[in-house]
């Protein structure tokens, strides 16, 4: 009986595993097919020859290189800013003593409940009023910090014994010296997790860039992809190639850092 259960479970798992991975594999393969192969009935699984020319076509039809540069720049800056501001805030909340600290903590936790979709439109308003539409600033400004990561880092830092800070203070270190030389090295795993997850979520962002940019010069990869899809109508093979382009960098980062990413999410249920 037990063996049947095991067999059935493994079959179940394999089936679902295939269902999970298959779209990615097909994305890559489909991007290398000709239009005919991509829309053939019955469907082609492996193209006769790899149509690398699809990628050239994609780059020709839409400035994917520009999109790539934009997204890299915006994601990088956002990640850096978020990690720095969250770390400094978490340091204050976890290590320093000051009046109203509890008020700030409670305030932050309650703000976590506000769905980002509720404030996104008013933020658009603010950005528009400042005349910042269609700029890098618009893409970066609202994301200079993350309440969630402040909360996450505060909890993480609390688990680092207070005596390290006290020892450093008695040793004569200033707060910034403590942060640079002791805190950062000791919390590297958490910082790496926060950095990578912020980067990925920034890379995959969609709704906000959709609101504040429609100029191709400032468009991000995800939005560029969806624009390309609607513009290229039925060129499925090109769409799949473009999709692969968008997904590839992240998948690479994922495979290199998957341990840190999975551990980070698992430890604290971080939503992207």
């Amino acid at each position, binding site marked *: 009986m037990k063996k049947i259960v095991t067999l059935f479970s493994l079959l179940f798992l394999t089936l679902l595993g295939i269902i999970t991975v298959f779209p990615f594999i097909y994305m890559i393969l489909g991007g290398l097919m000709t239009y005919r192969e991509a829309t053939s009935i019955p469907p082609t699984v492996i193209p006769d020859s790899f149509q690398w020319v699809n990628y050239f076509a994609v780059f020709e039809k839409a400035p994917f290189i520009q999109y790539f540069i934009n997204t890299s720049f915006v994601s990088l800056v956002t990640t850096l800013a978020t990690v720095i501001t969250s770390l400094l805030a978490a340091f204050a909340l976890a290590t320093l003593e000051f009046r109203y600290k509890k008020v700030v903590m409670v305030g932050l936790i309650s703000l976590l409940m506000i769905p980002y979709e509720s404030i996104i439109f008013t933020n658009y308003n603010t950005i528009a009023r400042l005349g910042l539409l269609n700029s890098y600033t618009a893409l970066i400004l609202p994301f200079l910090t993350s309440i969630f990561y402040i909360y996450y880092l505060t909890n993480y830092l609390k688990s680092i*014994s207070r*005596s390290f800070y006290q020892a450093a*203070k*008695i*040793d*004569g*270190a*200033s707060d910034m*010296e403590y942060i640079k030389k002791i805190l950062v090295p*000791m919390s590297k795993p958490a910082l790496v997790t926060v950095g990578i997850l912020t980067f990925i979520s920034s890379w995959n962002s969609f709704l906000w860039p959709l609101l504040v940019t429609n100029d191709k010069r400032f468009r991000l990869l995800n939005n560029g992809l969806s624009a390309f899809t609607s513009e290229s109508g039925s060129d499925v093979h090109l769409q799949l190639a473009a999709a692969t382009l968008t997904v590839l960098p992240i998948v690479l980062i994922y495979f290199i850092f998957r341990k840190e990413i999975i551990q980070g999410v698992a430890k604290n249920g971080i939503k992207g």
Partner: protein
Amino acid sequence: MIEVIGLQKTFDNGFEALKQVDFAIERGELVCLLGPSGCGKSTMLNLIAGLLQPTDGDIRFNGQSVIKTEPKDRNIGFVFQNYALYPHMTVLENIMFPLLVGDNKKKKAEAKVIAEKYMDLTNIKELQNKKPGTLSGGQQQRVAITRALVQEPEVLLLDEPLSNLDARLRLKIREEIRRLVKEVGITTIFVTHDQEEALSISDKIILLEDGKIQQEDDPQNLYLEPENLFVAKFIGNPIINFLPIEVIDDRVKHASFDLPLSHFIEERFKKSITNGKYYLGIRPEDIFPSDNGPLKGKIQSVELIGRERILHFELAGERVKSIVRVENEITEGTEVTFNLAYPKVFLFSLDGERIY
């Protein structure tokens, strides 16, 4: 050089950790803040270090108040109970750290020379390239002390430095600590709950309980002349025997014995004694088997600990211990008569005050 004046500390939740504490420490003294858990000793140390803020009162170094001064400007070194060695740095980097940060940073080469000088002093030079995680408890402790000394502070503070070490190591290292601080000549305050440790190495002990000083004295005096019942019970291992007695006219009466007050030495009375109930305290080594003594009991059990024998017996239901030499072959079940060394007996009032 350190004065604590009228110090009070009440925490946010209302807990009064220290209630009006006053004492002074001379330059070069090795002083112990001793007491059971919760007595306020660690709080006191943290206040002296500047890691906590007093609710009232003052702390002065060399006559100047320091309660508004940051820890780094108080010229102190601190050894934490868990050592707080920076895990990602080597021993050498840990020790050089205080010299490379802050207002009077030194150059790396200069810092290295100073660090090595102190590593020689504490004998840890061969550990310099290891990381703290690979060191034993005793080694980590020595690194922590070295790091605390490297800025050549005026005061060294140690928070339960030996409590994480095993018994044998504790005996060895406490001696080393005493030797080290005396050689360097630094004023030292250390906190512990282990009375034997305090008795063994301190110049002076400040015994705390419930946020108040119970007695401030040199170790031997604390043992021989406790000022109250708490001190008598806390100091000394095995714990002092104490029995409820009643003084009626000229007799000191207990359910199982009756002693003449005349046997008690007149000069030793701190106050005149009146009729009433008291506690009689006598240390196990001051109650001994004797051919004709006023106390009689049947030995219930005998503990053999190396060179001593502890006899357990009861006087009217109260457990009493007597320590004798191991050669004295009294066994379980024997009926024995005991006598007391009257110059060593203590009498305490019911609220603990020392009367005799």
